């Protein structure tokens, strides 16, 4: 018996939790690597500014980790609370990476605690730096394992269904399903990219607010360089993702591209408004879709009309696709201009308006992350396990999901506002100028 009300509210609540969690999770995966790089450079160059940079980021990171941990716990339990039928079935096949994720998380939690509370215990910064390796590895590995679970939902493998019974289970095959490589790659790179651009945005913002300290110049240049590398990586893996979709989930790409009729030499649609199968005001890039899908401008791309109507995703995902890709390329451009400009001493990259563009890059990258996840998730509607189980069959039969949705709205509101207020206050009360002065007084010199 399907309880439509429960299905609807379960979807809404899962979407709410994930949308909120992803903001903190992305930072949680990317920022440890940034801290690690900053501290490493500080040690190598023997430049206290980078060490201080690592320390200040780590301090803010605690706040985002706290929210990431509690919302992650929420989604972990909600999987069973809201989708009990799904977990009962999938648990038999995909429990292994889920289980391994908790180990990665455990590992990270332990060393993050140690790293944060041992700043003044080690005379040698290199020793302290070593603690960051398990933090960064744990953070990235938990993203790898949890993305494997999500990839499995897109490309279920490693089991067979005989007379309604699951048999012949192979957990390793389930983990290394065809969707896994591109998903994991894309998730990791976008998390690194977004974290770099968020940190760059903070530095640019402080400079716009009047800070002339060299600390921010170093910080901005470092994170723009890292952002450039990771955003280019993101674009490359994004291209692989499209090729994966063509081979395994063509209806997702077709819906995202409003590609209705199967044709050769298909063109890529950017933006536009749809009226039935007619698309107006779109930018058409001839042959680009075929090129994207098959590396061949004249190849045939399957259209959406080839699929049964009740197995295709909603068409609004086109806008999500556009948003994600546009922001992605925009950020490649902005960071490339900045880095090249820095090397060639272009003046305008230090202008106010360009700094504002960099500031905007932080939130924009986060929006791209959200858009990308909505695209990926809505794009496999109506399936929860593609071609095995539909979303409606998986949901709980409980009558109280709507109330719980309200409860979680309230919780996320408190956490969201709380984290922003605390982070702002933390850095406002202790600007870099003061922290350097304090350390100067404490140690009697050493840093300027």
């Amino acid at each position: 018996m399907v309880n439509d009300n429960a299905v609807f509210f379960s979807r809404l609540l899962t979407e709410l939790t994930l949308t909120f969690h992803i903001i903190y999770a992305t930072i949680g995966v990317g920022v440890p690597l940034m801290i690690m790089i900053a501290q490493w450079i500080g040690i190598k160059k023997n430049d206290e500014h980078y060490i201080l940079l690592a320390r200040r980021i780590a301090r803010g990171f605690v706040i985002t980790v706290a929210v990431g941990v509690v919302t992650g716990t929420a989604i972990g339990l909600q999987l069973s609370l809201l989708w009990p039928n799904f977990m009962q079935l999938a648990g038999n096949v995909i429990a292994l990476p889920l289980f391994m994720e908790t180990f990665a998380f455990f590992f990270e939690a332990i060393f993050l605690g140690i790293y944060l509370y041992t700043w003044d215990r080690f005379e040698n910064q290199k020793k302290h730096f070593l603690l960051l390796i398990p933090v960064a590895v744990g953070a990235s590995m938990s993203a790898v394992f949890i993305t494997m679970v999500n990839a499995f939902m897109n490309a279920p493998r490693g089991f067979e269904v005989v007379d309604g019974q699951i048999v012949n289970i192979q957990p390793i095959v389930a983990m290394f399903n065809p969707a896994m490589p591109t998903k994991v790659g894309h998730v990791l790179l976008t998390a690194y990219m977004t974290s770099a651009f968020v940190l760059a945005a903070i530095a640019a913002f402080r400079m716009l607010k009047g800070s002339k300290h060299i600390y921010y110049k170093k910080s901005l240049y470092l994170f723009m360089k890292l952002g450039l590398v990771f955003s280019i990586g993101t674009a490359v893996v994004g291209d692989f993702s499209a090729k994966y979709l063509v081979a395994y989930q063509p209806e997702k790409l077709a819906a995202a591209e409003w590609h209705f009729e199967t044709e050769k030499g298909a063109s890529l649609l950017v933006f536009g408004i749809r009226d039935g199968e007619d698309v107006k005001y779109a930018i058409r890039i001839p042959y680009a879709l075929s090129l994207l899908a098959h590396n061949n401008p004249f190849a045939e791309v399957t259209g959406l009309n080839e699929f049964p109507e009740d197995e295709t995703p909603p068409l609004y995902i086109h806008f999500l696709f556009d948003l994600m890709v546009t922001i992605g390329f925009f950020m490649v451009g902005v960071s490339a201009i900045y880095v090249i400009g820095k090397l060639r001493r272009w003046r305008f990259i230090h202008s106010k308006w360009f700094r504002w563009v960099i500031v905007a890059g932080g939130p924009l990258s986060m929006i791209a992350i959200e858009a990308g996840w909505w695209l990926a998730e809505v794009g496999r509607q109506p399936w929860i396990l593609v071609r095995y189980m539909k979303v409606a069959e998986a949901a709980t039969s409980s009558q109280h999901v709507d109330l719980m949705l309200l409860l979680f709205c309230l919780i996320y509101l408190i956490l969201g506002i709380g984290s922003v207020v605390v982070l702002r206050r933390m850095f406002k009360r202790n600007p870099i100028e003061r922290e350097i002065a304090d350390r100067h007084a404490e140690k009697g010199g050493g840093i300027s």
Partner: protein
Amino acid sequence: MSLEVLGVSVLWLFLFGYLIIASIDFGAGFFNAYSLLVGKKRILTVIIQRYLSPVWEITNVFLVFFFVGIVGFFPRTAYFYGTTLLVPVSIALGLLAIRGSYYAFESYGSRGHKGYSFMYGLAGLLIPAALSVVLAISEGGFITIIDDNPVLDYAALFTSSLTWSIVLLALAAVLYISATFLTWYANKAGDREATNLLRKYALIWSIPLAISVIGIMVELRKHNVIHFDRMIDFWYLFGISAVMFVITIIILLMRRHYGVAVWLLIGQFAFAFFGYGISHYPYLLYPHLTIYDSFTNETMAISLVIAFVLGLLLLIPSLYLVFKLFLFDKDYVRGKEDHHA
């Protein structure tokens, strides 16, 4: 030992780990809020924060580990417990969110925000209450199958005296465990005032703890005779637990050997908890679900066990390092240096 029993034992062990370290955490939050209320903040807050700040995230992982593990080893529990526990677990999650964010928010931003401290203290009592309800449900009688779907009978659950004795036990245990542990920690820090206060709390909370245990036995006899009889079969486990409890109290009264008291405390709860678990065997949810009919397939079970062993090889040395740095390091415990990020 069959894989089923191995799986459930491992999970039970982790739940026990969570029980101990979360109790310390929950109780500490309550004592912290209480000390604010009666104007003794200065005495307790320092000790509590010094211990808890580096470990709150680890505490949470124990819980995550348990629920991911149980769904992994026993996927059918997702169906029975997932469907029925939506409301109590969601409430617990909300409270956990408040707690989880507290240390980070408190230590860096809103230091001394009173409202938040009270919410935090209160959450520390409500979470064990919300979570312990699951133990009452597992005794059976509160879940009926309607149209093939399990449905939780809230009226029966909240009017049952078994439920309330379990809730009382959970609360008393949390406060007792926390106070005893923190007595040891405060003593190690050389903070006599906090030691005495916490020692007093430990002694006070041992009384409702003893009463509620007896209450549960009486209730269980009415509610689930099979379980009760099996508990009698394992009477010696509970006997050892009771003896350890009495010795702990004597040590606390003697005002010394607090380290021994902590080990006895852990032993006491270990024997009681495993006694309870063994006598519950083979049911995960009486009478609908046993560990056998809900167990995952053999391939998955074996790979989970392998992952578990490899994971432990990683975790045990790491946990040892944490203990060494924050529990057994004299300078840290006494707060000689500010080790803050």
